[in-house]
């Protein structure tokens, strides 16, 4: 395993630990948020985005390049019809099942083996995306 993959693995462990700590790995908790019964879940994305904001916006001013990478990659994407249509379809799926990609993968670690069905379906969905158009 190279150093980059090791860092990603360690960061991923924190990521998964935090998702489980916050309850996002439980579809029932996500659904109770989406049903507006418990709004606490907005602090998960908010808290994570706030911490990451400093990493993305401050650190590249101090370091020229990351110790185990070529460059600090910007996350830039132009708005397009696909971004919005995709977000609508994702929202319907999230609202039906309480699963999103990261929380579904992490949910496996909590013993929730049924989510394998959701993950298999996500692979099929991603494959179908590949069938409808090359980009």
């Amino acid at each position, binding site marked *: 395993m190279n150093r980059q993959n090791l860092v990603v693995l360690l960061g991923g462990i924190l*990521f998964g630990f935090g998702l489980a700590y916050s309850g996002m790995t439980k579809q029932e908790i996500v659904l109770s948020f989406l049903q507006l019964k418990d709004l606490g879940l907005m602090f998960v994305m908010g808290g994570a985005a706030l911490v990451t904001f400093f990493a993305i916006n401050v650190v590249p001013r101090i370091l020229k390049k990351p110790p185990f990478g070529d460059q600090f990659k910007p*996350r830039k994407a132009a708005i397009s019809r696909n971004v919005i249509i995709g977000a609508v*379809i994702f929202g319907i799926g999230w609202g039906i099942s309480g699963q999103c990609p990261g929380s579904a993968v992490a949910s496996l670690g909590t013993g929730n083996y049924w989510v394998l069905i959701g993950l298999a379906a996500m692979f099929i969905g991603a494959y179908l995306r590949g069938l409808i158009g090359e980009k």
Partner: protein
Amino acid sequence: MFPLGIEPYLIGGIIVGIGVSLIYILTGLHATQSSFFTTTLSWFSKRRHFQKERNLQERSWRLFLAIGLVIGALLYTLTFSTTGFWTTSVQLWRLALGGLLVGFGTRLSEGCTSGHGISGLASLSTTSLSAVIVFMGVAILTANIVQLVGVLP
């Protein structure tokens, strides 16, 4: 509004942020999840969509990210969790249908709750902000309709 308080959510979110930040600071990579499906499919499909240079470059570290997520959640379940291992009571048809739409939608939108929601918002991307507003709004609407027609939980 907050029957369980906000602490577990906020603390969990901050831990997630530390993990994502650690990866960004040390490697320059955005630890986002939905691309994992596309890059992993590059091992199995010869289609040009999956064989793009970027997918081949990213597929190995994205696999490590996914393994990390599982290990992290497992560590939490073995230590701090008060409920231990569990399984969801959400119906399998919902996991399957929802998963299909999540997989297709996040790849069409090129981002999910972590891609648009964490990395995108943290990057002050207006594209991601638009995507977040749309998928949150649609998800809230959908979850309430599902509940309204009597499908629980």
